[in-house]
C-alpha cells in the first residue's frame, strides 16, 4: 500500500464530551438507516472505564504486535448490542392510549451499544468516569485493509480515508477480525462489511463530518494532519496534547484524543490530594500509552498560564471560540449544498 499524499484526521477533546450521543445520532440518521444496518453505530460513545462496544473490544485482538498481524475475534451482533425491536406501532398507532407502553420485543437483551453508561470505575469518594467517542480511525497502517484477501478495502490516496468497496467485498469478514478497534460491521442483508466513511461525500463538498459539525460540546476538530495553520496539526504535532487511542495496536490511528483531566482525588482523610487525579494515571496510560503523561502536563501548564491571565494558544484552541475554525476549512453549511444521492 502506498502512503496517502495527505491524511484527514480528527481530534476529540475528551474534557468536553458530555456523552449526549448527538454525534451518534447525527451519524445514524445520515448513514446507517438501510436494511441490515439496524445494529450499526459507526459512531459510538461509551463510558470509561467500561466494556465498550462491542463488549470487551479491547480484549478482542487484531492489529499488529511488533509489526506482525495479530489474530482477532469476530464480534457478534449481540456483542455489538444488536438492534432492539420495540412495539412502536402498538404504542403510537394501536389506539390503546396510556395502556400501551414502549417495551422491547422478543428476548430480553443482555447487552446494548451503551449498556454500561455512567457506571465508570473507582470507589467513592474517588469514583470517576469519562466518555470516549469512537469512529473508525482511518489508520495509516489499516489492519482491515491488509487483512482483506480481495483488496476490497481502499485507503484514498488523496486524503487517507479508508473505505470498503462494496463491489469487491464478498462478506468474508477478515477485516472485522483484523480491526483491533472493532469498528467494522457486517451487513447481513447486503452481505458486505460496512464502516465509517469519514463522511467523505460531505468532505468532498467542503462540509465537516456530521459527528463533528453536530457536536454541541465543540469536542471534535477536523482537518488535514499537515495543515500547519489548522487545529489538528497544532494539537497533534505542535502541542502534542492529542494522542491516539491504544497506539500499541500498531495501526497508527488518525483519530486523536485530548485526554481527560479530572478533579484531584480525596485522600484517606477526606482531604483533597492535589498530587493525584481522580482518574488513575495507570488507567489513562492503559488507553493512551505513556504519552498521556506529557499531554496532561502540557494541558495543566497551559491552563495555569491561562488562569494567570496569560495568552495560551493551546487553551484558546481547545475552547474553540470560533466554531467554524475547528473544521480545517471544511466549514461549509450543508444546507447550502444541493445533495444528490447517486
Amino acid at each position, binding site marked *: 500500500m502506498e502512503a496517502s499524499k495527505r491524511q484527514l484526521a480528527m481530534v476529540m477533546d475528551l474534557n468536553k464530551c458530555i456523552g449526549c450521543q448527538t454525534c451518534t445520532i447525527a451519524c445514524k440518521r445520515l448513514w446507517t438507516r438501510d436494511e441490515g444496518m439496524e445494529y450499526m453505530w459507526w459512531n459510538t460513545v461509551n463510558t470509561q472505564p467500561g466494556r465498550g462496544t462491542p463488549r470487551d473490544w479491547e480484549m478482542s485482538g487484531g492489529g499488529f504486535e511488533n509489526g506482525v498481524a495479530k489474530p482477532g475475534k469476530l464480534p457478534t451482533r449481540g456483542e455489538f448490542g444488536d438492534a432492539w425491536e420495540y412495539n412502536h406501532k402498538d404504542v403510537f398507532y394501536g389506539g390503546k392510549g396510556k395502556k400501551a407502553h414502549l417495551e422491547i420485543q422478543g428476548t430480553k437483551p443482555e447487552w446494548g451499544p451503551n449498556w454500561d453508561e455512567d457506571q465508570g470505575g473507582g470507589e467513592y469518594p474517588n469514583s470517576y468516569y469519562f466518555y470516549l467517542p469512537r469512529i473508525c480511525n482511518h489508520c495509516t497502517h489499516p489492519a482491515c485493509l*491488509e487483512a482483506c*484477501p480481495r483488496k476490497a478495502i481502499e485507503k484514498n490516496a488523496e486524503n487517507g480515508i479508508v473505505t470498503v468497496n462494496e463491489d469487491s467485498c464478498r462478506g468474508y469478514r*477478515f477485516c472485522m477480525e483484523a480491526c483491533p478497534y472493532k469498528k467494522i460491521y457486517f451487513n447481513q442483508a447486503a452481505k458486505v462489511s460496512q464502516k465509517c466513511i469519514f463522511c467523505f461525500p460531505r468532505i468532498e463538498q467542503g462540509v465537516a463530518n456530521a459527528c463533528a459539525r453536530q457536536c454541541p460540546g465543540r469536542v471534535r476538530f477536523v482537518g488535514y494532519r499537515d495543515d500547519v495553520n489548522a487545529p489538528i496539526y497544532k494539537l497533534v504535532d505542535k502541542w502534542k496534547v492529542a494522542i491516539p487511542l491504544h497506539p500499541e495496536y500498531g495501526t497508527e490511528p488518525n483519530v486523536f484524543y485530548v485526554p481527560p483531566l479530572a478533579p484531584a482525588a480525596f485522600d484517606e482523610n477526606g482531604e483533597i490530594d492535589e498530587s493525584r487525579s481522580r482518574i488513575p494515571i495507570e488507567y489513562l496510560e492503559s488507553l493512551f500509552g505513556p504519552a498521556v503523561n506529557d499531554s496532561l502536563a502540557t494541558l495543566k501548564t497551559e491552563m495555569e498560564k491561562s488562569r494567570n491571565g496569560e495568552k495560551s494558544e493551546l487553551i484558546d484552541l481547545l475552547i474553540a471560540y470560533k466554531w467554524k475554525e475547528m473544521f480545517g476549512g471544511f466549514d461549509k453549511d450543508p444546507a447550502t449544498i444541493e445533495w444528490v444521492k447517486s
Partner: protein
Amino acid sequence: MRAVYASAELDSLLDSESAPWRAQASESIQLIGTPAGLQPTEAIRASYTGKVIGATTSVRVRALHNGDVLAFRLEWEDPHEDNALLDNDSFPDAAAIALPAVADAPLVLMGAPGKPVNAWYWRADEPNSARHVTAEGLGTSRTLDVDVVKARGVWKEGRWNVVIARAMNVTVPGAARITPGSDTGFGVAIWEGSHKERAGIKAFSGDWKVLTIDPTHAGGAA
C-alpha cells in the same frame, strides 16, 4: 473422470435427483485443506497457522453434458446445513468447480498472471444461483458475471447435493471453453460454513483432475 453425454434439458441437469444423474456413477475425490502459508494476507496466515483447514474430507462427483451445457453434481456429507447469514460469525456452506481458462493455468495457486483459473462458485445462502469467477493468482478472484453459471443446491438428511452447470462454449474473457470429445482439467473446493470457512480457507482436491468430455451423441446415459 468422464463427463457423459446425456440428452437432457438444463432443468433436468440442475435436478440432482433426475434420471440422468441417477444413471450416472459417482467418483469419490479426496479433499485436503489449503495450506495456511498460502493464504493471501498475513492476517489470515496468522489466524490459521496451526489450525485445521478443510473440514470436508471427500466429495462424490459426477459429470454430465448435453452438448451445450456441462454439469457437475457434487455430493458430500455435512451434518450441519449452513444456508443463511444468521450473525456476524455465521458463514454459508459453499462449493466450486475450477477449470483452466488456459491450458497451463496453475490450480494450486488459483492461476497466475495471464493464466487465469475459471471458477463456478455456489453458496448455500443463494442456493439457486452461482457466480462465474476468474482468478490469476491467490487473492485475485473476481466475479465475471452472476448469470452464466447455473446451480441448484439441496441439503437433505446430512448431505449436500449441488449441481453446478455452465454452457461449454462461452466467449467471456477469463472463462474456460470446453469442447465435447476432449479432455479438460478440473478441481473441486468445498467450504464448511460451521467452521467459518470462506475465501481461501477451504477443502480442495489438489492439482488438476482429468475430465474426459464425451463426444456429443456418444451414447452414455440416456
